[in-house]
């Protein structure tokens, strides 16, 4: 890798802030549009229903499995390979009648009874009743809102309000972008993905706070320069850190994507997307929003009385 030079960079990031804003707004509109039109491909956790993962001792053809299921009265089941040709994933939408709780056993029984299915074993079965799914949606939404509110309070308490608003704008941007990505490409959104989105909130704020910390420090330290110049300098000074941390975290999540198994795919994708936009938004959304709101040196200087009191 060698020693890539990220020092003494003097990139005029904020010069392109208008372009960045146009880009961000466009992307967000696409994301929101996709959410409204295409909606989310919600996973079993939220929709309710049954998912059964069956492992065969030998590769198995999907049409045959479908036929067996249709004969056993599961014509509404969706069947696909999962990971390898020996693994089959079967989804059955929520049912009004019948005992949903024993569905997984009936399906497995039917498959084992069919030709070539004698050695089929149950790898995983999940059944979520409709009332549980509804609750998980509510709780997930509450958790996301709670996390945003908690972080907003913390940032308001630690920073000046313009920077706090910038941070929240950046975080909301990242969440919409990540969720929009899942909607646009119709990737299944389940509980682990929700957990990843909350981790993205944490990561995005983390990343933004580092830049804001430096902006505050530089506003206090430097006498000269416009707000924009100081912000640009701060972004440049923290650039190598921003890139190092993003790459380190990205690396670990990419490893998770390739080695963590199919179950971790959604989680890893959400984190990868979130880390990338989180890095971008710390630079363009957070700082630019604060700049638009008219942050100035006076806003960030410690109030005279407080400094006097702080002295030992």
């Amino acid at each position, binding site marked *: *890798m060698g020693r890539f030079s990220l*020092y003494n960079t003097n990139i005029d990031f904020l010069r392109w802030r208008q372009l960045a804003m146009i880009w961000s707004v466009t992307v967000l509109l696409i994301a929101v549009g996709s959410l409204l039109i295409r909606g989310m491909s919600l996973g079993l956790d939220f929709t309710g229903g049954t998912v059964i*993962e069956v*492992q065969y001792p030998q590769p198995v053809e999907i049409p045959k499995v479908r036929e067996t299921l249709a004969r056993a009265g599961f014509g509404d089941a969706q069947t696909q390979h999962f990971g390898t040709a020996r693994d089959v994933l079967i989804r059955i939408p929520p049912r009004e009648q019948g005992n*949903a709780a*024993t569905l*997984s*056993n009936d399906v497995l*029984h039917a498959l084992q009874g069919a030709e070539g299915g004698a050695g089929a*074993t*149950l*790898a*995983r*079965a*999940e*059944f*979520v*009743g409709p*009332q*549980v799914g509804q609750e*998980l949606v509510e*709780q997930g939404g*509450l958790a996301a809102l709670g996390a945003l509110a*908690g*972080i907003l309070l*913390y*940032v308001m308490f*630690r920073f000046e309000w313009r920077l706090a608003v910038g941070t929240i704008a950046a975080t909301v941007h990242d969440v919409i972008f990540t969720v929009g990505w899942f909607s646009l490409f119709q990737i299944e959104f389940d*509980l*682990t993905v929700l957990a990843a989105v*909350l*981790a993205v*909130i*944490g*990561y995005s*704020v*983390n990343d933004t*706070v*580092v830049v804001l*910390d*430096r902006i505050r420090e530089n506003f206090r330290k430097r006498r000269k320069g416009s707000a924009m110049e100081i912000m640009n300098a701060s972004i440049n*000074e923290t650039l*190598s850190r921003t890139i*190092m*941390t993003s790459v*380190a*975290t*990205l*690396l*670990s*999540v990419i*490893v*998770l994507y390739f*080695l*963590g*198994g199919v*179950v*971790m795919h959604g*989680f890893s994708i959400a*984190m990868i997307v979130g880390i990338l936009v989180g890095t971008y938004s710390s630079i363009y959304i957070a700082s630019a929003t604060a700049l638009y709101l008219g942050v100035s040196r006076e806003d960030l200087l410690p109030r005279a009385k407080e400094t006097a009191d702080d002295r030992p």
Partner: protein
Amino acid sequence: MSTPYTLNQYPWWKYLLIGLVMLWGLIFALPNLFGEDPAVQISGARANIAIDAAFQNRVAALIDAEKLPHKRLELEEGRLLIRFPDTEVQLKAADILKDQLGRDYIVALNLASSAPGFLRAMGLNPMYLGLDLRGGVHFLMQVDMDATIKQIEDSYVDEVRVQLRTEKVQYSSVGRPASGGVQVEFKDAAERDKAAAVLRKNLPSLEQTALDPLGLKLSLREPEIKEKRDFALQQNITTLRNRVNELGVAEPIIQQQGSDRIVVQLPGVQDTARAKEILGATATLEFRLADEENDWNQAATTGRAPLNSRLYKDREGRPVLLQKRVMLTGDSIVDASSGIEQQNGSPAVYVTLDGKGAKRMEDATKDNIGKRMGVVFIENKTETKRVDGELKKTAYTVEEVINVAVIRDRLGRRFQITGLDSTREARDLALLLRAGALASPIEIIEERTVGPSAGKENIAQGFRAAAISLLVIAVFMTLRYKNFGLIATAALAANVVLLIAALSMLQATLTLPGIAGIVLTMGMAVDANVLIYERIREELRNGNSPQAAIHAGFDRAFDTILDSNLTTLIAAIMLFGFGTGPIKGFAVTLSIGILTSMFTAVTGSRALVNLIYGGRKLQKLTV
């Protein structure tokens, strides 16, 4: 700034403290190194079944007869553990033992830590693996509380009718309207006032509301509703616990979730169909008079019951002879609750019967005062077994005498059962009476099953991902920061050790998303080191001496590290508060990881830097 020489030196106690923390981490993380043996655990189905050395020999002989390779047998308090080299032998052994030992013993599959005994004696255990990593079933069950309250209101309808009749109050109808409660209609206002007074006196727990024109509505008060709901939930938990015991699960979890739900986790259970059958069994009750003419023990030894009698066993396995004729069935019970008897303060169970039941009870008991009466608890179960390659469903019943008491008086609508040993026994009896008579409908609303091989695969993939990710980050950091990168890697490894130690100590459940949390923490934990090192580089570029740069780097980066970690912690705590199951596992590892990384990445790596670079003159520093 003071002279650079004295900078970057920790007092000896700080090194000691860090050393002690790391020692603690290594000790607590140690049990995780040994892995787990597939094992079969045998315990007695009842308290009086001895699991002793003689029993151990019997089991050893059984296993040897089948030529099953096994590691060792361990006799622990009330249970026998047999370790096997692989799961195939384990499953075979469990089947054989189940067949040979019969229903007196609970044969359960278990994963036993192969950590040496002294570690376990010190209370050190490996991390507790969630069902997605060890395989097993998770059920979330919901108790139908509306049905429970309806049952209670129905019993009040009966009660109100009796009260009004005895007090000779004229009414036109008593019923339970769709909106709930009990509604009484009258022909004139005077009768209504009379009824209100009677009911206020005799059924003070009901709230009265006058309805136009001539109605009276009686409703349950909040505290009573809450009490009944709690009771219904507890009763279901007790019933489920009894049934799970029979399923043979080594470490089942049965606990309340929220106000009307029960979580049942059965690690290692593969046959979910059987689990559902057993958990979903229905129960009934029968009251029978005792056979006072024959010797119960004699009947037990000959195994033959006299004519007109049936031989039962009580919960301790002692023989009980009851008459064949059934006095009363559980359908007649409208309520059963435990309490303390007023006169002598002993624990008692209060039983209330419906009108028809009361009549039958009176007739049956009036000529039998001084004789004994037994209560039989009957569970109807189905069992699916593979017979000659075909799955066959067989129904069977388990009958057990849960109480034998002397009839002291002619029993009517309300009677009490006393002579119980403890309030706990009274409580259990009340729960069983209700379970047989008034079981609240219960429904599985969520199921998550992971097969044992899928669980193994999950854990292998998870750990491989974590290990590779640690390696990749180590290489990346070392390429960029040279020696300091190695220090960051050491801090990261220490972080993983502390995280595993904390999870082992708290016995928090490790899930697959939890492993994702560990991987993510690794990526984020290096952030603290990146912040510090970048700061040191900056200070060096600004012309500071190496020692001053190190000092300032750690010092100035700290505020930022604190800010960024606290914000992530807020998100993690929110996840913990709202998340369920596996997601909670993610929140737990993420939160603990943030806390431990603050320690290792700041204090730990500082100590290493001080040890290597501190206290001497540095001409040049490569970061």
